[in-house]
């Protein structure tokens, strides 16, 4: 059997749902060796980092430079608050480490640009976490690539997450203070709905938009050039209080004459029996394709079932493993990961353009 290198990974902060470093640890080609973060982080950050380090029996080092210097790392798994994603990733890249970073890429396009430049300058690999290897998404790509529907002309992704996000809209009593975004996100850690953790409030477009736009990017091979969006706070008081969307519709004009759309929302647990209604619609010159992203799944119902437990369980989901396989392949062969820094940056640009369009009510050119 040929000898293959096991890549040593440092966990650069792990403050929200920790699927990313867990996926790294679960793949046989990777090994977690240290958790690290900056010493000046607040106590709750250190607590979460320490807890993760303890679970995996690895040290927690409150000094990123020291961890890089002392642990012979090949790569960093970056998963802090969204506003720190790029900074930690750039520092890792500047140390010559390959990087896997959680979504969203950043809360600022300038930070994304800084990361793209650092990845290129240091000639390292970067993977932005995504769902492009879900079985139904892979099936979509295979159907398109087979030519079954001819030339791709239009693509639509409906992406409604049915998780709750704190008190419903309209629930704040007169005189009560507005909900603090970070407090709410920290509270949401308990049920894993803290995808927007950070000091800066983010709407659903910013938090989850990377996933459907990642599908569109992969399936069309095109960048979005212009958007027109409507955004609203329709469901959750935290989004109202922090003036960020929880429902959005975006028209997309892509390269190659492809048109598309994205509908996205955090629609609440009452609105769907599972994690949400997530579908991909593709129109080609020779036909159309309708894909439910959750499939394959198994339905499970039983007496005294908790009301918020999903009744349909996704199965054969190897997204995490395949992402890590993809990254290992990139490190072995020099190929580009399935969603690299430039693609992630361009998707972030689409998101920011959509947010701007939602505010101005006008179409916005995407800075790609």
């Amino acid at each position, binding site marked *: 059997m040929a000898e293959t290198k096991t890549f040593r990974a440092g966990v650069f902060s792990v403050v929200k749902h920790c699927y990313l470093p867990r996926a790294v640890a679960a793949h046989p080609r990777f090994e977690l060796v240290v958790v690290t973060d900056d010493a000046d982080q607040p106590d709750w950050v250190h607590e979460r980092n320490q807890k993760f380090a303890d679970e995996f029996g690895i040290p927690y080092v409150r000094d990123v430079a020291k961890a890089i210097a002392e642990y012979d790392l090949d790569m960093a798994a970056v998963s802090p608050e969204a506003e720190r994603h790029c900074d930690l990733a750039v520092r890792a890249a500047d140390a010559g480490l390959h990087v896997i970073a959680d979504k969203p890429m950043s809360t600022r396009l300038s930070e994304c640009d800084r990361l793209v430049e650092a990845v290129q300058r240091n000639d390292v690999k970067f993977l932005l976490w995504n769902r492009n290897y879900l079985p139904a998404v892979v099936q979509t790509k295979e159907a398109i690539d087979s030519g079954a529907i001819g030339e791709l002309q239009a693509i639509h992704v409906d992406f*409604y997450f049915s998780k709750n996000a704190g008190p419903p809209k309209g629930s704040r009593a007169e005189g009560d203070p507005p909900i603090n975004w970070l407090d709410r996100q920290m509270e949401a850690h308990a049920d894993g709905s803290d995808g927007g953790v950070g000091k800066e409030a983010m709407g659903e477009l910013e938090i989850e938009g990377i996933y459907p736009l990642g599908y569109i990017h992969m399936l069309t091979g095109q960048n979005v050039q212009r958007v027109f969006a409507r955004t*609203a706070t*329709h469901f959750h008081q935290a989004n109202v209080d922090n003036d960020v969307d929880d429902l959005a519709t975006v*028209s997309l004009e892509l390269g190659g004459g492809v048109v598309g759309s994205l509908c996205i929302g955090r629609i609440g647990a009452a609105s769907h029996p599972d994690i949400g209604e997530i*579908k991909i619609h593709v129109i080609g010159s020779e036909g159309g394709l309708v894909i439910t992203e959750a499939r394959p799944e198994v339905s499970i119902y039983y007496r005294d079932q908790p009301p918020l437990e999903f009744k349909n369980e996704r199965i054969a989901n190897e997204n995490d493993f395949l992402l890590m396989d993809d990254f290992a392949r990139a490190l072995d062969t020099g190929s580009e990961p399935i969603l690299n820094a430039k693609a992630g940056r361009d998707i972030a640009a689409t998101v920011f353009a959509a947010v701007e369009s939602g505010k101005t009510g006008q179409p916005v050119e995407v800075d790609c």
Partner: protein
Amino acid sequence: MIRLALISSAETAQAYGALSTRLHRAAWTAFAPLDSGGSGQALGQVTEATSAEELFTNQADVFDAVVIAADQATAGRLAKAASSLGKPVLAGAAGSNLTALGQADSLLMPAHPWRFLPSIQSVKRSIDSGKLGQAGLLRIHRWLPPGADVESQAERILPDADLACWLFGSAPESVWSLQSAANPGYIQFHLGFANDGMAMIDIAASLPSGGDYFSLTMIGGTGAAYADDHHNMNLLYSGGQPNAIRTSQGRADLAGQLQEFVDAISEQREPSVTPTDTATAVAVVEQILESADNRQVIGGKEGN
């Protein structure tokens, strides 16, 4: 008992004839063909006129109300003639030519059969009952084979523009549309309603000949409704990959629409679909096409 006359093709008469036993407080009593040699036999024992004009001139005493199933121009002309006789009219295809008749004293109900599909009725009831909370997002995908039933893009768009206005209870405040350079049968429109309501609708008349596809999602503040062909497909195995076969909603749309027409006459009330509704939908269609042509947002925050 309300006596109904039908002016239609023989094929449509077959469809309406099949509904005869479902109809309450009404019966077919007269038929006039639109096509030569058309017969109203499917309606049972009815007075058959040779043409709509002959029906209005010589047989006006054998019916109380008229159902006209014709193209826009013909329906408008015949509806006007029937209205001048004081006869209530159910007329389709709905279009701008009907809206001018809205001021007539007699009842005029434009045909909007898409509203009466069981799936759409179910969604509407869930909104009206308050189960879904405030309407937030209407998402429609409608894909058709080329040339299916309608002649123009405006006609193709009208049902979904109407559904959006009906489900949100008003006309949109802003309109944005996109077309595809590669696919002239494609249009996407993006409507903004009061209270941050939004509709995103894509229509493609470019499927290969055969079945169509329709999916409607309404997401409200406290719930959501999904009327989706994808959910309602069964499987047929006949070698190779299985084929999806859609479960049918029958012609409940026609039956529901006709009964509403009859009930409105019986109860001497306005029908649930009025010429004003058609006029609103027609105006929205015009805005959709205007936005697609000039790539500008119509209405909305422009100039703010």
